[in-house]
Structures are given as structure tokens and as C-alpha cells.
């Protein structure tokens, strides 16, 4: 298993895709973090320091894409065939990809959250603004965001294994997370459910970035458990699909 994980980590490092995704996250987080913390107007009630830390949540979408690419790239370029001829156990292959990409997702999360936290705290203190954050608040958000990023990477691995088609998986996942869930919140009652128990709701609860503002939010632990449940469901479905599938590409 260690061998397979090591092979997956080498696959990640040996193309420019992962590097480009990490670079994009760093660039976005630094840019938006700086702009937001320089221009934030704390005299208005609805802006809170915690929301600024939430900027690091960008990393989750990129971790999701990275995870989706784990399996779909192998199908797109046909490398799945040599991969399976050196190690035919498909369940172990998906698990190795899962481990490698959760590690990459966590790294991405640490990078994004670390940079955001540093930028926000430094800029605000140089503006002479009291963040009003305890160390405990910051730690909760940091850990939550990092874990959420790792879980989104895992979700991507499961989804990619299930769907196999690269464009379809990415469009579907981003469409759901960024568009469909937001549209669903318009519907009465159902909207409240989606907001609380949807992918974004669970993620926000885990990240602890929406504690008092929206009122009805799961606790951090419950949000984490729900996100873990979604992820596990996709990983199991993806693994089962991989086991059955005829590999013809």
C-alpha cells in the first residue's frame, strides 16, 4: 500500500496540474486576502474578522478539482491501463489515490489558511483594528478549514472514480457546489434544509465561519461528521464502480 501511495504522490508531482492548482490557490488567497482586509469596513455590523479568514475556503474548490483529476486523468490519457497492469487491485488503487490526495488537500488547506490568517491578522493589526478574536476562535477556524479542504479532495476522488469523465465530473461538481445549492436555497423550507445540511452548509459548519450570522447552523463537529458522511458515500460508490468497470480506454 505504501508503494502505491508513493506512486500516486509521484504522479501528482510529475505533471504541472497540481502545481498550477496550488499556485492558483496561493495567488487568489493572497490577492483577495489583501484586498479584503485592507478595505474591510468594520463599523458596519455584518462584517466580521472570521469572514475574512473564510477566504481560505477557496482552497476547497481547488482541492475538489485535484481529487476529481486523480482518477479521471488516468482515463483521459489511458494511463489507467499501465497502472492496472502493474497493480491490478482496483480497490487498493482508489485507496492509494485517496490517501495521496487527502494529503495534498490538507497541504493545500494549510497553505491557504496559513497565508490568509497571516495576511488578515497582520493587515488588521497594522490598521490598528482589534480583531476581537481569541486564539481559540482562530484555531477552530484554521483546523476546520484545513480539514474541510482535505475532505473536499477525498470527495473529488470518489466522484471522479464514479463518473470517470473528466469534464463531466468537474462541471457537475462545480455546478452543484457553486450554483445548484445556492439556487435551491430560494425554495421555502427545502431551501433552509439545503442551507443547513447541503454540501456548503456542512462545510461552513465545519469551517466555523458562519457561526452566529445565519442562525441555524450545525455545530462544528456535526458539520464535520456530515461532510465526512457525504465523502464516504462518494468514495464507496466510486470504488464499487471502479471494481466492476471494463477498462477499455
Amino acid at each position, binding site marked *: 500500500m505504501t*508503494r*502505491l501511495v*508513493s*506512486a500516486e504522490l*509521484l*504522479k501528482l508531482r*510529475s*505533471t*504541472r*496540474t497540481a502545481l498550477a492548482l496550488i499556485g492558483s490557490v496561493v495567488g487568489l488567497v493572497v490577492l483577495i486576502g489583501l484586498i479584503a482586509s485592507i478595505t474591510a469596513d468594520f463599523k458596519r455590523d455584518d462584517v466580521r474578522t472570521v469572514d475574512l479568514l473564510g477566504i481560505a475556503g477557496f482552497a476547497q474548490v481547488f482541492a475538489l478539482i485535484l481529487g476529481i483529476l486523480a482518477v479521471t*486523468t488516468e482515463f483521459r*490519457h*489511458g*494511463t489507467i*491501463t*499501465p*497502472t*492496472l*497492469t*502493474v*497493480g*491490478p*487491485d482496483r480497490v487498493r488503487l482508489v485507496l492509494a489515490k485517496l490517501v495521496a490526495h487527502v494529503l495534498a488537500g490538507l497541504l493545500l488547506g494549510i497553505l491557504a489558511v496559513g497565508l490568509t490568517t497571516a495576511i488578515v491578522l497582520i493587515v488588521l493589526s497594522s490598521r490598528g483594528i482589534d480583531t476581537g478574536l481569541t486564539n481559540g476562535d482562530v484555531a477552530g477556524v484554521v483546523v476546520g478549514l484545513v480539514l474541510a479542504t482535505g475532505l473536499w479532495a477525498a470527495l473529488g476522488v470518489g466522484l471522479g472514480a464514479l463518473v470517470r469523465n473528466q469534464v463531466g465530473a468537474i462541471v457537475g461538481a462545480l455546478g452543484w457546489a457553486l450554483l445548484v445549492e445556492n439556487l435551491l436555497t430560494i425554495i421555502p423550507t427545502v431551501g433552509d434544509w439545503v442551507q443547513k445540511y447541503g454540501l456548503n452548509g456542512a462545510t461552513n459548519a465545519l469551517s466555523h465561519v458562519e457561526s452566529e450570522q445565519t442562525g441555524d447552523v450545525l455545530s462544528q463537529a456535526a458539520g464535520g461528521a456530515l461532510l465526512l458522511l457525504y465523502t464516504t458515500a462518494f468514495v464507496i460508490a466510486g470504488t464499487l464502480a471502479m471494481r*466492476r468497470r*471494463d*477498462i*477499455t480506454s
Partner: protein
Amino acid sequence: MGVSAIDIDHLTKRYGETVAVDDLSFKVEPGRLVGFLGPNGAGKTTTLRALLGLIRPTDGTATVEGSPFGDLADPAHTVGAVLDGGMLHPSRSGRNHLRMLARAAAVPNSRVDELLKLVDLADAADRRAGGYSLGMRQRLGLAAALLGDPRVLVLDEPANGLDPQGIRWLRDFLRSMAAQGRAVLVSSHVLAEVAQTADEVVVIARGRSVAQAPLKELLATSGGGMRVAGPDAGRVAELLRGTGAAVDAASDGAIVVRDRSGEDIGVLVAEHRLVISELSPISSSLEEIFFQLTGDPGTVA
């Protein structure tokens, strides 16, 4: 006799209504180089994919050293395979392509460097594989197949994209692999590529085996026959037909005998004290035999 290196046993694969492989059986023994021939779409790749556990047979089995590929204790050191050249991530270097496979197979990086030299890719190894020619991709695929120094080699159309020198190199190479006691199964849709090297050939068409024999036998039984000309040619034809031979009349009064050797005809001529002016084998190219067997003249390559 022990288990065969490769054993395809009544293999059938259907995709919905389409039958890709239809009750196909053949074996490859260690030390033998077997050509797996058929026109494009005959079911060669499907058979090889079933052998490598990539697709699930509808019926029958395909085993390596007696086990399904997925059950082998150490697959990378048992079977090396190249299916459809060019399975590379375009932005990964050739060296990293081999290294990632080597890691999964517990093969050291030194073996990767060794193989890159063997297939003459050492200079291009650190370039992005997207820029490789088809021939380079084939050679990289071959290096990947050899990572675990396997006892069984399965190669799908390995000569595609190779120049004449490359094809010659490949032939010698495959010959040496078989001479070392390895079982080698090479598919091709071009008979001549494999003909000079293979110990025997399996010819399939539309998923079914149409011939399976050493090449010489195939040439003898499916060759162009013997041409007999001369004053008594007609009498020879009569006598041969009397023994059940297939005899055709040629346009110039000569005859063509399909299934008797030159010696058989010579004996007959001597026994009956006949006069003929010509007794010669009609050379039939390998391709003609191939088309005759597969009934598919549409894939001349």
C-alpha cells in the same frame, strides 16, 4: 506438462448485441513467440484486455500461469504488457512515467535508467512525453512492460509507428526474449511484421479463431498450390481429381493443384509415364493467405 504461460479458454466477450470475442481458445507456452493476427476489429485487443483483467469475460477464462491476472501474487514480475501505444500523460516526462509504474511495482529507479538506455530513450527521458513520436511512445511502453523482468510478455501492435529499423530491432528483441525462456504474445494486423519471427500464429477474424499453427504449416496448407503444365496436364488433372485433390484449370491450359505437394504430383507423373513441361509451386504472399483466412481484404496495411 505444467501450466501454460498463457491460456485463453473458450473466451467470449459480448458488448450488448455485439460479440467481440467468440469462444476463442489458444495457449502460449514458455519460450514460444506467438503471433496473434487478425484484421482491425477482429477482437485481438479485447482478448488481451481480458487476459490482463481489464475487462470481464462474458464467458470462458483467460489465465496467466494458471491464475486470472488479478489473482497473481506478483503481477508486475509475472506479466509485462503494452496495450495500444501512447498511453501517457502528455505533461509527464518519460522517465517519470516509468518511475511511477516502477514505484507501484517495487522496482528500483536504477532499473528505469537501465531500460531507458535499452529502448534508446535515455536522451529524451526528461522531456514531456506529449512531444514523443509514436515510435518513441511504443518504445517507452515496451520499457514499461519490462520493468519487472517478467516471464510473460503481452504486446498489442508493438510495431505500429516504428520505422523499418525499429521493426527489425523489435523482431530481434522479441526473438531474444523468447530464447530466454519467456512466453511472448504479439498481436498485429500486419502479418509480415510477425511472420519472420513467430514460432506459431493464431489468426482470428470476427472474434473467432480461424487458424492456429506454426507458420510453415499455414503456408503449406493455405499456399497457392502447384502449377502443372505440359502435354499431359489434363490427364494429370483427371488422375488427381480421382484421388480427391482440388484441381483448377488455369487459363493457358495448365492446371493448379491446391492440396498436393510437388513430390506427390511427381510420383503420379512417373507412375503413369506422363509428359509434363512444368511443375512449380505458386508463391502466395503471406498477405494473400491472411486475407484468404480472415476473408477481409479491406485492411491492407
